[in-house]
């Protein structure tokens, strides 16, 4: 079983396909869960405090906007954990944790320069493309075993 990071890091489809093929999907909601279920913090909605943008300095300098660094404090650690990655081309409707394009660019860069196997795809727009999409993911994940 490999730890596979998916991009967009909140994707239901990608994380589902990774898990149903017997691997561990590394996703942002798991990180958010740790934050929002921590009792000692009180900074709704996400319990992100000004400390998170500071933790994000590990991935981006202080002149990078605080929103990028705050997001990186969530996504950066799971990039470090990743043993493989599936990257889907930006579909134009990413919001929330994936709502900042500068963060997303940095995330893709860090994944690609990490040196783990990466599968590049686009979201399917018809049945033929969907069959290839699912097949490629399956083959990629089988290759990781």
């Amino acid at each position, binding site marked *: 079983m490999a730890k596979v990071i998916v991009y*967009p890091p909140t994707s239901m489809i990608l994380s*589902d396909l990774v898990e149903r093929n017997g691997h561990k999907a590394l996703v942002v*909601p798991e990180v958010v*869960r740790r934050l929002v*279920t921590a009792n000692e913090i009180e900074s709704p909605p996400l319990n992100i405090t000004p400390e998170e943008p500071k933790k994000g300095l590990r991935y981006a300098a202080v002149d990078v906007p605080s929103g990028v660094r705050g997001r990186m404090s969530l996504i950066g650690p799971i990039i470090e954990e990743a043993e493989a990655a599936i990257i889907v081309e930006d*579909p134009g409707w990413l919001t*929330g*944790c*994936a709502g900042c394009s500068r963060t997303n660019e940095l995330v893709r860069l860090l994944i690609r320069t990490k040196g783990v196997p990466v599968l590049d795809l686009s979201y399917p727009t018809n049945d033929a493309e*969907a069959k290839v999409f699912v097949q490629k993911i399956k083959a990629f994940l089988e290759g990781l075993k």
Partner: protein
Amino acid sequence: MLVTKYVITSSESNVLPSDIAMKIYGSKYDVNVKETCFGVIVNGEEEVINALIKEIRALDPAGIFIKDRGFPPGDPRRCRGRRGGGARPGFYMIEAESKMLPLISRALAWEGDIPAIPEKKKPLAIKRLEEIAKEGLS
């Protein structure tokens, strides 16, 4: 550790969110369930949720999808009723991917050959464009 997961059904699945909820209510699992328009949210101990999800998937292996969620169901920090209306930003991504689920479902269920995808259209060669322009202008 308590975890929360979305169970989302493809719009073409014969299994309805209410069927899933009924299945969980009638099961041995001690979990919280919340029905939503696109599926159900389940919350419980990680091992319990994982075992439950296996059973739910079996209802329609190609038509039911699972997604992790950070917040417990109905968390006031994320509830739009308590937070001045408007969907939370991440909702739009679930909505966009949900619309794609029938394609993925059919692909998962497909057992035939994988079709060849025609290559993406490339821009017209400049020489050919020149010819067309000349033809059009003459």
